[in-house]
C-alpha cells in the first residue's frame, strides 16, 4: 500500500479492487472467528450447561404449593355446631404489579373503608413478603366491598380478592372461654410449629380448646405441583395430593344448658361449671362477662382489643379456669366427711355455738356469720344445712391442717384438675410445707380455723369447686374433667385419678343427707330453691369474704362499695339418688349463696335434667 505516491490523484481502479478484496478477506476471517465465538457460546449454554438451565427453567415454572387442610369442626353433645369454617374474602396486593403504591392505596381508600390501622399493618407485612406474594390489605370484606372492588378492578392492577376458609364461632360469646379462638400465626409461633405441615395454614389455635387440641383439629397439609407464569398466576395443576382434614370433635358441653347458664348470669360477673360425675364430662363452663371470639380470628383491631383489656369487668379473664376464690362454706361437706373419716366426729356429735369460737389460751374470737350462733348443741346435719361456722372452726382445729390438706387433695383441691384446656390455675390448699416454703414461717393453729370455713389462705377455681362437688356426687371418684367427648365418632374416656374406697358408704350417706337438708330443711340456707323442684338436689351455699372484717365491726352491705361485697357461691348435685350433674356457681360480689348463686345452679340443673331425654322419659314412667 505504501508504494502509492502521495501526490498521485488518478484513481487506480485495479489496485483499489485488489485492496478491497484483501481487506474483505481479512473481514471474512474476522467474521468466521466471531461466528465461532457465537457458536461456542450457544454450545456452552445449550449443551455443556444444559442441566443447570433446564433445572432453572423448571424451577421457574413449577412450584410446589401447599394446600391447607380443613380445620376440624367442633360440636356440642347434641350435634350443635360450636366452631365452623366459613369463606372469608381478603383484599390482597402484589407489590411487584403495582407501580404507584400510595396512589393505589388512595384509590382503594376512596372505594371502600380503609383504616390507618389496616394500612399500617399492611406496610409491616409488605416488608416481610416474598417476591410476587399476595400481601393482605384488608380482611373480612363484605359482599358490597367485593362488588365495588370487582367493578373498579381495571383502575387498580395488582389488587385482588382472595377467598379463604376461616374459623367462625356461630354462638358468639357463649363459648369464648371454652373454645378459645384461632388467630393468625405470629412470628414467635412460626418458630415452634412444623413449617411443612403449616405451610398452607394461616391460623393456629391461640387459646382454649382450639389451642389444646390444635394437633387434632389442624389436620395434615396437602400439596400440588403447579405451573405458574412470571407473574405468579397459576396456569395449571400438574399433580395434587389432597390434604388430610382435621378431626371433627364432639364435646360433653350441652349448648342449651350453656345458654341457660348464660341467661341466668345475665349482667353478673362470675362463673358456672357443670360436670357429669359419672364421666367427668364438662356439661357447661361459663365465665361472664364474655367476648366475641370471632373478633380475634382475622386479627382484632387495636381499638377493640384495648376496649376489652380496659374493661373493668375483665371479659378476657377466664374466671372458670383462672379465677381463684376462697371456696368458703362450700368446703364444709368435705371437712365433715374428713371428720368422720378420721374418727373425730360422728353425724351425732354436737358442738356448742355461742356465736364465736376461741382457741384454748387465746382471747381472739372467731365469729360465726350468724350473730348469737346456731344454739348450744349443733350436730353435723344442722351445721351443714345452716352453714354453722363455729362447728367447723372446732372440727378444723381438731383435725389439724395436715389432715385437712391430705383429705382436700383427694378432692382435687390445691392442684390443677387437668382439664383439656389452657391456662388453668391450681388454687391453693395450704399446708405446713407450703407456709414454710412461701412465707418462711410456722403454721399457726389460728390459720387452720379459717381453712375450716374455706377462707384464709385457701383458694380454688370454680372448676376445682365443681370437681370437688362431682367427687361428692360420685362418692369418691376423682376424674380429670373433660370437654372432649369424641373424635370423629370415637368416644374419649376421662382419666380416673382416684377412688376413695376407704370411706364407708354410711359416711357418704350422712354427707348427702346433710346437703339435702341445705335445700329441704326449713332452716336450710338453700331452702328457697326447693319450690317446684322436680328432682332431689343436694347442695351447699357459700359466701366468700372479699375484705376481712375486723372483730367488733359489722358487715354492712349498704356501706360497702359494690366491688367489696362478698362473693356468692353455690354447689349442688342432682338427682341425689343417682347424680347426673354437679354444678358450681360463683357470682362475684353476689353476696348471697342461696339467694343469688343458687337459682343459677337450679336453672342449669333444670335445663340439663328436665330436657335431657332419659330423665324426661323416666318421669313419665
Amino acid at each position: 500500500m505504501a508504494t502509492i505516491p502521495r501526490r498521485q490523484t488518478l484513481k487506480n481502479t485495479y489496485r483499489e479492487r485488489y485492496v478491497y478484496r484483501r481487506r474483505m478477506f481479512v473481514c471474512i476471517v474476522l467474521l468466521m472467528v466471531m461466528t465461532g465465538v457465537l457458536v461456542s457460546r450457544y454450545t456452552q449454554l445449550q449443551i455443556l450447561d444444559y442441566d443447570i438451565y433446564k433445572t432453572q427453567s423448571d424451577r421457574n415454572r413449577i412450584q410446589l404449593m401447599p394446600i391447607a387442610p380443613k380445620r376440624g369442626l367442633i360440636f356440642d353433645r347434641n350435634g350443635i355446631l360450636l366452631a365452623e369454617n366459613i369463606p372469608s374474602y381478603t383484599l390482597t396486593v402484589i407489590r411487584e404489579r403495582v407501580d404507584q403504591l400510595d396512589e393505589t392505596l388512595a384509590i382503594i381508600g376512596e372505594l371502600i373503608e380503609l383504616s390507618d390501622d389496616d394500612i399500617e399493618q399492611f406496610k409491616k407485612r409488605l416488608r416481610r413478603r416474598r417476591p410476587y406474594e399476595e400481601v393482605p390489605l384488608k380482611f373480612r370484606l363484605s359482599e358490597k366491598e367485593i362488588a365495588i372492588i370487582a367493578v373498579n378492578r381495571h383502575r387498580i392492577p395488582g389488587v385482588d380478592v382472595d377467598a379463604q376458609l376461616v374459623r367462625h364461632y356461630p354462638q358468639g360469646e357463649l363459648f369464648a372461654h371454652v373454645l378459645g379462638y384461632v388467630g393468625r400465626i405470629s412470628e414467635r409461633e412460626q418458630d415452634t410449629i412444623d413449617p411443612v405441615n403449616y405451610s398452607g395454614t394461616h391460623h393456629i389455635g391461640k387459646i382454649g380448646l382450639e389451642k389444646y387440641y390444635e394437633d387434632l383439629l389442624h389436620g395434615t397439609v396437602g400439596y400440588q405441583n403447579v405451573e405458574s407464569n412470571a407473574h405468579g398466576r397459576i396456569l395449571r395443576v400438574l399433580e395434587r395430593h389432597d390434604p388430610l382434614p382435621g378431626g371433627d370433635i364432639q364435646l360433653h358441653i350441652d349448648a342449651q344448658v350453656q345458654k341457660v347458664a348464660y341467661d341466668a348470669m345475665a349482667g353478673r360477673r362470675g362463673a358456672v361449671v357443670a360436670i357429669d360425675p359419672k364421666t367427668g364430662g364438662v356439661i357447661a363452663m361459663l365465665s361472664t362477662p364474655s367476648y366475641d371470639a370471632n373478633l380475634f380470628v382475622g386479627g382484632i383491631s387495636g381499638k377493640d382489643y384495648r376496649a376489652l383489656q380496659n374493661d373493668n369487668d375483665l371479659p378476657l379473664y377466664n374466671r372458670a379456669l383462672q379465677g381463684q376464690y376462697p371456696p368458703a362454706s362450700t368446703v364444709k361437706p368435705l371437712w365433715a366427711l374428713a371428720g368422720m373419716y378420721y374418727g373425730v366426729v360422728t353425724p351425732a356429735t354436737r358442738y356448742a355455738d355461742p356465736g364465736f369460737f376461741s382457741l384454748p389460751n387465746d382471747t381472739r374470737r372467731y365469729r360465726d356469720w350468724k350473730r348469737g350462733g346456731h344454739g348450744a348443741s349443733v350436730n353435723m346435719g344442722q351445721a351443714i344445712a345452716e352453714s354453722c361456722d363455729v362447728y367447723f372452726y372446732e372440727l378444723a382445729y381438731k383435725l389439724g391442717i395436715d389432715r385437712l390438706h391430705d383429705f382436700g387433695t383427694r378432692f382435687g383441691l390445691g392442684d390443677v384438675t387437668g382439664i383439656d384446656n389452657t391456662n388453668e390455675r391450681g388454687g391453693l390448699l395450704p399446708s405446713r410445707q407450703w407456709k414454710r416454703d412461701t412465707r418462711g414461717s410456722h403454721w399457726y393453729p389460728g390459720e387452720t380455723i379459717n381453712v375450716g370455713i374455706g377462707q384464709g389462705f385457701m383458694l380454688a377455681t370454680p372448676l376445682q369447686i365443681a370437681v370437688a362437688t362431682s367427687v361428692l356426687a360420685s362418692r369418691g371418684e376423682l376424674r380429670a374433667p373433660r370437654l372432649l367427648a369424641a373424635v370423629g365418632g370415637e368416644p374419649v374416656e376421662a382419666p380416673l385419678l382416684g377412688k376413695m374406697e376407704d370411706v364407708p358408704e354410711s359416711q357418704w350417706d350422712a354427707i348427702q343427707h346433710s346437703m339435702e337438708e341445705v335445700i329441704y330443711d326449713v332452716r336450710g340456707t338453700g331452702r328457697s330453691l326447693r319450690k317446684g323442684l322436680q328432682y332431689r338436689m343436694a347442695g351447699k351455699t357459700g359466701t366468700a369474704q372479699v375484705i376481712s372484717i375486723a372483730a367488733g365491726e359489722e358487715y354492712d352491705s349498704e356501706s360497702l362499695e359494690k366491688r367489696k361485697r362478698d362473693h356468692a357461691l353455690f354447689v349442688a348435685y342432682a338427682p341425689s339418688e343417682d347424680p347426673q350433674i354437679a354444678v358450681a356457681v360463683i357470682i362475684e360480689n353476689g353476696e348471697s349463696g342461696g339467694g343469688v348463686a343458687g337459682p343459677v345452679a337450679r336453672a342449669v340443673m333444670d335445663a340439663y335434667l328436665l330436657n335431657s331425654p332419659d330423665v324426661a322419659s323416666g318421669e313419665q314412667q
Partner: protein
Amino acid sequence: MSQSDFLRQLPSGAGPMYSQRTLSQRLRIDPVMLFLLLLLSGVGLMVLYSASDENAAVVLRQGRFLSVAFVVMVLVAQLHPEQLQRWAPFAFIGCILLLIAVHFMGVGAKGAQRWLSLGGFRFQPSELAKLIMPMTVAWYLSSHPLPPSWRYTAASLVIIFVPTVLVATQPDLGTSILIAASGMFVLFLGGISWTFIFSAFGLLLAAAWPMWEFVLHDYQRRRILTLLNPESDKLGAGWNIIQSKTAIGSGGFEGKGWLMGTQSHLDFLPESHTDFIIAVLAEEYGLRGVLLLLLLYALIIGRGIWISTQAKHCFGRLLGGSIILTFFVYVFVNMGMVSGLLPVVGVPLPLVSQGGTSLVTLLVGFGILMGIYADERLVHQ
C-alpha cells in the same frame, strides 16, 4: 421460466438484448438473495407466532410490514449506484439536520428521545443514518484515490463521528454502534492504513475510562455491570439476562418444540417479540435451530460479500461491503447480548425481531445491494 416462454422467444431471435433478459434481471433483483431473505423472514414469522403466544394478529401485522419492506427493497433496487453517489452529500446534511431536530423536538419513551413526529407520521432519523453513513463515507472516499491518505481518513472520521455522537446521546447506544460500524467498514475496506488502525485501538483503550465516567448514561453503566454480574440483582437489572440465558440453555440441542417454550410462554422471558426473540428460537428449536439460523445468515452474508466484490465501481463496492458487514454486526451483537456475551444495547435480530422501522432500513440496504448487482450484470452483458 417456463418451457413455452423459451420456445416462443427463440425463433424470433432478432429481438433486442433487453428482451433476452430474465424477469429477475428486468426487476433488477438477485433471486438467490431474495430467496434467502424470504426464507429468513418465514422463519422469523414462525418464531414470532410462538413468541407472541400464538397471536395471529401480531404475525399478520409483521407480515404486512415485511410486504411493504420487500416492495421498498425492489423499488430501491431500481436506483443506480451513481445516483446514490450523487445524492449522498445532500442526504448526509439532511440527516444531520434531522438528528439535531430530534434533540430539540423529538419524542420518545423510557428516558430516550429517538422519534421525530411529522404530521402524524413517526420515524427514527437514526435509522436513516444507518444507510446514509456508509453512503457518505463511500462517496467521500471514492472521489479520492485509495487507499485514503491521513487527511482523508481524518475527514472521514469526522463524517462518522458527528451522527454517531448525535445518536448515542439520544441515547441509543445500539444504533450508534451500528452507525459507527457501517462508516468504519467503508474506511477499512477502502484500505485505511494498519498503522492507523492499531494506533486508533490504542487510543480507544486509553479513552475507555473517561468514556465510562462521563459519556455513558447511568442505565448503560448499570447494564454493563449487570452483564458482568447478573446474579447481583435477580429481580431488577439482572432479570432479563438470567431469564434469556435460562431460556437458551434449557432448550438443549433438540429444543422444547415449537410453541412449547416455557420461558417465553409463561412470560419469564422479557422482550420476547423484539430484541430477545433469539432466546425463543433457541429454547424451542435448540442448538440445532440456532446453527441452522446462523447458516442462513452466513449464506446471506456470503452472497452479499460476493456481490460487493463483483462491483466495478468503487462507490458501489465500498457501500455494498459495508451494508453486508453491518448486517453481520446486527446478528453478532444481538445474539451476543441475548446470550450474555455482550451488554444489552438494544439491537434487533435482523428480519426476525418484530418491528417495522429496522425492517425497512435493512431491506433498503439489500435493495441497494441488488441495485449494485444489477448494474454489474448489465455491464457483463
